[in-house]
């Protein structure tokens, strides 16, 4: 494409970047250099190449961005095609990141989307540090928290003062059915994902006694087959795979059997799939809206042409079209972004067992960890308290779960190091015993 054609192509964008306006960012100075920056050097990372990711890539490419990277470990499934518009029937089974990147690069000349067909955890700080802006289009809260942890770990403080050059803004979007949200996180300056963990609703769980003894809903029957019958009968000598139609077929059969035994109506194949795979309904339109909002924010941040969203927007078009924008507040003692040392208050260390401590880390609304691994230092020596993710260590440390903190030799003021899937960094918690005078030897 010739230079003049390139100039002409971005005529729309140049109008808002080369003309002054009354609602621009106070520091905005219109000039052709801004467009040059977008086109030549601004490096953006798109996390996720699914429903939001496809839209984000298209939106960013047509807002002039060329140095775009996209990371996604998923492959294309038939059920993606109702909204992930860069994929076709022939692409099923291929890497989402690769197919999406190739499509954009072909459709938008000059755009250089670089795909990464891997997990976000496969890369370290040096990769993430190389971007000017990141934008997340994920359906996983754990992955979103991990990315949030990553950008916060990139901040450097000198004498408690944040070095602004280490800030990488994060724009984050999420959708569910006809609802969605978009937010702008300026790490160290406004609310981060962990500050607002209470915004994520807990996953629906059914008490075991209900599903085992007093089922009433079709979901109870399906859950019973999933958590009780499957491990017991082990029909395919494999863990339950929601993408395997034989597995789902078996669960469907057995759920139907159980439901008819109790006269419970409403077990359908679709419901079985939904419960087993925790399926979140999704449509093209909501993804388009939320990705559009996110891409607009990336453009604002990259160009300073107007002030970015401050800082959270909710969208809902179930009844008419509704949006609400507000400033989500930072949590003073946020585990990830507050710089405040974290303490774990313990009422009675001779009664509290290690498993209780883990329960707090998993269930407290402020932590919501998934599979925390705990280590500490006792008398200058590293000690692994419990790690569930590595089989040999799990077996070796399993007995610790039922020991009290006193039995484990833990004392008031000691640090516990916690590693979890929700964070790229190890988090440090200081034990604070209410009954620190009680010394037991």
């Amino acid at each position, binding site marked *: 494409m010739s230079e003049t054609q390139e100039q002409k192509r971005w005529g729309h*964008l140049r109008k808002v970047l080369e003309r002054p306006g009354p*609602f621009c960012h106070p520091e905005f100075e219109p000039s052709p250099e801004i467009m040059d920056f977008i086109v030549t050097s601004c490096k953006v990372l798109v996390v996720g190449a699914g429903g939001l990711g496809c839209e984000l890539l298209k*939106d960013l490419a047509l807002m002039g961005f060329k140095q775009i990277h996209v990371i996604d470990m998923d492959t294309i499934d038939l059920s993606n095609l109702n909204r992930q518009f860069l994929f*076709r029937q022939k692409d099923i089974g291929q890497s989402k990141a690769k197919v999406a990147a190739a499509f954009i690069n072909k459709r938008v000349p000059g755009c250089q989307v670089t795909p990464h067909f891997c997990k976000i955890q496969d890369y370290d700080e040096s990769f993430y540090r190389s971007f000017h802006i990141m934008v997340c289009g994920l359906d996983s809260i754990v992955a979103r928290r991990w990315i949030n942890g990553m950008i916060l770990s990139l901040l450097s403080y000198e004498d408690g003062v944040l070095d602004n050059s280490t800030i990488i803004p994060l724009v984050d979007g999420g959708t569910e059915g006809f609802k969605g949200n978009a937010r702008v996180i300026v790490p160290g300056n406004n609310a981060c994902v962990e500050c607002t963990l209470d915004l994520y609703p807990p996953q629906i769980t059914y008490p075991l006694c209900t599903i085992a003894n007093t089922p009433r809903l079709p979901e109870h029957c399906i859950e019973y087959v999933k958590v009780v019958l499957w491990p017991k009968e082990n029909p395919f000598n494999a863990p339950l795979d929601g993408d395997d139609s034989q597995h789902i077929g078996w669960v469907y059969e057995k759920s139907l059997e159980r439901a008819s035994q109790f006269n419970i109506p409403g077990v359908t194949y679709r419901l079985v799939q939904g419960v087993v795979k925790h399926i979140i309904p999704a449509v093209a339109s909501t993804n*388009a809206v939320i990705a559009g909002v996110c891409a*607009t924010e990336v453009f604002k941040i990259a160009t300073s042409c107007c002030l970015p969203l401050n800082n959270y927007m909710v969208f809902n078009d179930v009844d008419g079209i509704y949006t609400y924008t507000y400033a989500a507040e930072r949590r003073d003692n946020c585990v990830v972004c507050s710089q405040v040392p974290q303490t774990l208050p313990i009422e009675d260390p001779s009664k509290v067992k290690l498993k209780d401590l883990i329960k707090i880390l998993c269930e407290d609304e402020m932590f919501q960890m998934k599979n925390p691994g705990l280590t500490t230092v006792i008398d200058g020596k590293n000690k692994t308290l419990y790690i569930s993710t590595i089989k040999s260590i799990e077996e070796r440390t399993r007995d610790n779960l039922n020991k009290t903190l006193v039995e484990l030799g833990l004392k008031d003021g000691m640090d516990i190091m916690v590693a979890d899937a929700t964070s790229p960094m190890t988090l440090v918690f200081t034990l604070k015993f209410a009954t620190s005078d009680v010394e037991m030897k």
Partner: protein
Amino acid sequence: MSSPAPKSPEQSEKSKKYDRQLRLWGDHGQKFLENSKICLINATALGTEILKSLVLPGIGSFTIVDGEKVTDDDIGSNFFIESDSIGMSRAQVATQNLLELNPDVRGDYIDESVDHIMAHSQDFFDTFSVVIATCLPEKVLMPLSRHLWEKNVPLIVCRSVGFLGYIRIQVKEHTIIEAHPDNENHDLRLDNPWPALKEHLDKVDVTKLDNKERSHVPAVVILYYYLAQFKSKHGHLPKTRAEKEEVKKMITESPPPDEHGIKNLEENFKEAIRYINTCINPIKIPPNLQAILEDDSCINVNQNSSPFWVLCAALKEFVEKEGAPPLKGTLPDMAADTSSYITLQQLYQKQAQTQCEIIYRRALEIARNLGLSQETITESEAKLFCKHASELHVIRGSCIADEYQKTRVDLTSCLEDPDSLMFHYITLRGLERFISEFNSYPGQLDDHVEPDVLKLKGIIGKLLGEWGCSQIIRDERVHEVCRYGGAELHSVSAILGGCAAHEAIKLITLQYKPLNNTFIYDAITSTSASFTL
């Protein structure tokens, strides 16, 4: 015991592909979508973004009407226009690239301007399910709006300019059966149980249950028992807050003390207390349903009435006789043993079935008396209708041409409200008038921004005068629109495109409440507003 051979239903490719959306609007909603015909006027970036979110979920077909040739501006903002297509028919290029998205969808195009079609064959538009127009000048919009209003074809008009955009829906009458409200109050009829339910509930004396039975009795049974106690003491059901507190106290004090003398309230009893606040108010006809029952179309059904209104006429008779809408037939989950819960659930379901049967039969009778074909009303439609009787809605919109002639809202008071985004509406109306008068966008050329600000200010002042509005629009608002010079920013069009597409889906599927009738989006502040104009 050997398990029977798997006989799970083989899912079709289509239901696999559309799985994530079928969970929202169901197979019946999908069917409406697959039978729909959409017309897009002008394949701008916004236009193709709208069609994209309609082709993907599987509309039946689309037709693009656009006489323009592809320009550099299209290449830089429209994803469905390839860079090597400059000078080609925009309608043709967009149609080809949109069709790639979904092999189930058919599409064609007419590479002529909408004015041309309006002049030669107005009735071209009459067979579409929805007509969507972007970038349509006022002078074409007026006759098109009038025509489609008369023909009862829904019209969606939108524009995306700079960081601003709007969507205006014109629909004469739109009826909704499934509004899918976010939260609903459960209609348990404990204040006025039908005989079978009363007989069932009267059998249980909650005070005579042992501990195990207590923990398994459903909240509905508990609440009914204590309401009956209250009624036999006071002669009526609790109405005031204090009276409800009294029932609450009776329930709270009901458990037998444990060995420490402490009364532990079981989960199901706590549930019963929660239901006091939401479920024992006398059945009221919700305002949306009341409006339908009083609607002319319901009172005066005739040979031209749709199945919806015939069903409404039958529903009206039912409500007048029973004093309440038909039961939904569902029971919320509550802590209870399986058989107590299922027995109750079946009672509610059976009563709902009986009531639906009455309404369905009556609707068939009405249809017959009107000389309508009996097949117009299906049993499945009647079932859906009765189940959602409390959520029925009717929207009666307004014609855009009428709005442009005489606005219905009090602009002055809207403009006085500092939180209102009404000023955007005024500015955008000024913009439309400018485009029609000068055949260009204000600020389209770099050296025209300043003079165009003056021109646009003049136009807006004149419009406000016509509307008898004494307020003015701040200069910077006018300046900002001229700064855009008609620029279409792709990401802003993506936002509006998604919104407009979903409104079209609502109109087609008759599910979820559409916008009534104007939506304005300000991408600078990421805020929006809706107005009924």
